[in-house]
C-alpha cells in the first residue's frame, strides 16, 4: 500500500514539474554545448520545486489526509439533522424569497452606483441561468451554445432600435420571442441527438451566431458593434438629461427634481429585478405543470417516456424554446444596460459561465441557481485585488465545489404531493 502510494506520489510530483514548465513560461536555450534554463527567476524555480514537494507529500499521505477531511463534516452541526418537513421548508423558502425581494428592492437606495450596476448584471445572469436550468437541469439537454439566444435577444433590440427606432418596451417581448423562434428552429435538427453529440451541435450553433454577427458587417456593423441603444422609458418619460424624442418628457423634469444619472441605473435595475422575478415565478409554475414533469421524465428515461405517449419532439422543443425565450429576455435587458453591443459579449466563455452557474447551483434547483449566479458574478469582482490570479482562484473554487458538493449548492428537492386517501 505504502509503496504504491509513493510510486503514485513520485509520478504526480514529476507531472507537476513538467506542467509548470509551459505554464510558468520556462524555456530551454542552447548555450554552446550545454543547455541553459531561461525565463524564470530563482523565486519561481524555488516555488515550482516547493509545489512539487507539496504534491508529493499530499499524495503520499493522501489516505490519512482524506480520512481527516472526511471527519470535517461532523463539525457541521446541521449535517446529521433530519430534513425539515415539507410545509416548514416551503414556508421558509417563501420567507427567504420575500426577504430577498424586499432586500433587492431597497438595495439601489443604499448601495453605491457601481454596485447597483453590478447587481443589474447579476440579475441578468440570474435570468440566463434560470432559463438554461430548464434546458440542462430539467430536460437534461446539454446546451453549450446558450449564449446564442442571449445574443439574438440583444441584437434584435439593437437592430430594431437602429433601423426602426423601436423602444425598449416593444423590443422586450419581440427579442424574447425572436430568441424563442431561434430555439425552436435549432431544436428541430438536434432533437435526434443525445448527450455529447447534442453538446457539440449546440456549441457549433453558438459559434455560428457569433461569427455571423461578426461578419455581416452591412447589417450588424461587424466587430464594431451597434451603439446608441435607447434606455428604457417609464410611461414615456426619459432618463437622459435632454429629451431625445420629440414629445417625450424627462423623468427629472416631470417630478421637478434635479437631474441625476443614477436614476437611470436604478430604474434599469428595478426592471431587471421584476423580469428576473417573473422568470423565476413562471418557471417555478412550469415545473409543477405537466410540461415540467415531462421534461424530467424525458431526462430520466426517454424510452419509458415515449412508451407512455410523450412525444420526444414536442417535449424537447418546448424545453429548448422556453429556455431560449428567457435568454432573449436577458439579452434585451443587457443591450439596454450597455447601450452598446458587439459580438465580443457573446463568446463561448459566456455559455460556459452560465452552464457553470447551473451546475454549481444544483441542476434543476431554482434557489441554488440564483445563489450560484450571485456568487459567480460577484466573486470575480471581490477578488479583483488578486488581479491576474482571480481566474485561477475562480477555477480552484469550482474544482473544490465539485469535489465536495457535486450535487450543487442547494440540490433540487422534490415537492411532496398529498393525496386524498381512498376509503
Amino acid at each position, binding site marked *: 500500500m505504502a509503496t504504491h502510494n509513493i510510486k503514485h506520489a513520485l509520478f504526480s510530483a514529476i507531472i507537476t514539474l513538467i506542467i509548470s514548465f509551459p505554464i510558468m513560461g520556462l524555456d530551454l536555450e542552447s548555450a554552446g554545448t550545454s543547455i541553459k534554463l531561461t525565463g524564470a527567476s530563482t523565486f519561481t524555480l524555488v516555488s515550482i520545486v516547493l509545489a512539487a514537494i507539496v504534491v508529493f507529500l499530499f499524495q503520499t499521505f493522501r489516505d490519512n489526509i482524506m480520512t481527516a477531511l472526511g471527519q470535517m463534516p461532523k463539525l457541521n452541526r446541521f449535517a446529521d439533522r433530519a430534513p425539515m418537513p415539507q410545509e416548514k421548508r416551503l414556508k421558509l423558502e417563501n420567507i427567504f424569497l420575500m426577504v430577498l425581494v424586499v432586500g433587492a428592492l431597497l438595495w439601489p437606495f443604499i448601495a453605491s452606483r457601481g454596485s447597483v450596476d453590478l447587481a443589474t448584471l447579476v440579475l441578468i445572469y440570474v435570468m440566463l441561468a434560470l432559463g438554461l436550468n430548464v434546458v440542462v437541469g430539467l430536460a437534461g439537454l446539454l446546451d453549450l451554445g446558450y449564449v446564442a439566444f442571449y445574443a439574438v435577444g440583444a441584437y434584435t433590440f439593437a437592430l430594431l432600435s437602429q433601423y426602426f427606432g423601436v423602444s425598449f418596451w416593444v423590443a422586450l417581448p419581440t427579442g424574447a420571442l425572436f430568441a424563442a423562434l431561434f430555439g425552436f428552429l435549432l431544436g428541430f435538427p438536434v432533437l435526434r441527438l443525445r448527450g455529447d453529440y447534442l453538446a457539440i451541435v449546440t456549441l457549433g450553433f453558438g459559434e455560428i451566431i457569433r461569427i455571423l454577427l461578426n461578419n455581416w458587417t452591412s447589417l450588424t456593423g461587424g466587430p464594431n458593434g451597434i451603439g446608441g441603444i435607447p434606455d428604457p422609458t417609464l410611461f414615456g418619460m426619459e432618463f437622459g438629461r435632454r429629451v431625445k424624442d420629440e414629445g417625450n418628457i424627462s423623468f427629472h423634469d416631470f417630478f421637478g427634481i434635479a437631474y441625476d444619472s443614477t436614476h437611470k441605473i436604478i430604474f434599469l435595475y428595478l426592471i431587471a429585478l421584476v423580469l428576473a422575478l417573473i422568470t423565476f415565478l*413562471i418557471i417555478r*409554475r*412550469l415545473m409543477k*405543470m*405537466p*410540461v415540467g*414533469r*415531462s421534461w*424530467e*421524465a424525458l431526462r*430520466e*428515461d426517454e*424510452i*419509458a*417516456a*415515449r*412508451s*407512455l*405517449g*410523450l*412525444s*420526444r419532439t414536442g417535449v424537447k422543443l418546448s424545453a429548448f424554446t422556453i429556455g431560449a425565450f428567457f435568454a432573449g429576455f436577458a439579452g434585451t435587458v443587457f443591450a439596454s444596460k450597455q447601450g452598446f453591443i458587439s459580438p465580443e459579449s457573446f463568446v463561448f466563455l459566456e455559455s460556459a459561465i452560465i452552464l457553470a452557474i447551473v451546475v454549481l447551483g444544483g441542476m434543476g434547483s431554482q434557489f441554488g441557481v440564483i445563489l450560484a449566479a450571485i456568487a459567480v458574478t460577484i466573486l470575480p469582482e471581490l477578488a479583483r485585488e488578486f488581479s491576474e490570479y482571480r481566474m485561477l482562484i475562480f477555477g480552484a473554487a469550482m474544482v473544490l465545489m465539485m469535489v465536495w458538493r457535486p450535487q450543487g449548492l442547494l440540490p433540487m428537492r*422534490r415537492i*411532496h*404531493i398529498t*393525496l*386524498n*386517501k*381512498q376509503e
Partner: protein
Amino acid sequence: MLEVRNLSMRFGGLLAVDQVSLDVQEHEIVSIIGPNGAGKTTVFNCMSGFYSPTGGQILFEGKEIQGTPDYKISRMGMVRTFQHVRLFGKMSVVENLLVAQHRHLNTNLLSGLIKTPDYRERERKSLDRAAYWLNRVGLLDLANRDAGNLAYGQQRRLEIARCMVTEPKLLMLDEPAAGLNPAETRELNELIISLKEDYRVSVVLIEHDMSLVMEISDRINVINQGRPLASGTPEEIRRNDDVIKAYLGEA
C-alpha cells in the same frame, strides 16, 4: 382487437422474427412464451412501435399500425412495460403516475400558468386516479418516495400502475414476474387477472414463469428461434410435443 399477421423483423443478416402471427380478442390474456432469444421481445417492440417491422401487418382495432411512432401507438391505448424496469428514478412515485397521464391533462401552457378552473379540475382528477391506482397496487404509503428507491417488486407494481393510469385498452407486459419471489408472483398473478376482470383490459404477456403463464392465460403462443411453434389453450400447449421438445431438448 389486435391482430398480428406474418410479422417479420430482420436486423441485417439476422432474421429475428419470421412470419409470426397472433391475435388478441377483447377481454383476454394471451401469453407469448419461448426459450431465451426466441424473439419474443422483438415481437413486442414491433407491436409497440419501437421497431418498424420489415414485413407483415399489425392491426389494432382494424387499423394498420406497423411503423407508427411509439408515442402514437401508446396514445391509441396500447401501453407496455419493460423487461428491465424503466421508471423515472429521480421522480417521486406519484409523479411517475402523473407523467403517464400527460395526455389526459390540458397541455395548453397558458391555462396552466394562470391555473384556470378547468385545469385545476383536470389536475385534481389525475391526482385522484394516481391515488386510486397506488392504493390498488399497495404503494399509497410510499407515494412521495423517489421511484428509484423502491424495492424491486414495488417497482414492478408501480410500472404496471403507471400503465393503468393511462386507461389502456391493451396492456403488454414483458416478463412482469422476472426477479419476483413466489409470494410476489402470486400477488402479480391476482393483479393481472383483476385487470382483465375488473378493468376490462386485454393483456399480452411475455413470461418465463410457467406456473404463472399456465394459470392465467386464455391462450398461449409459442415462438422458437423467431418462428411460430404452436398456439392454443394452456392445456393444448402443455401436451404439444413440439413445445416439449423445444423446451427440454430431444430425447
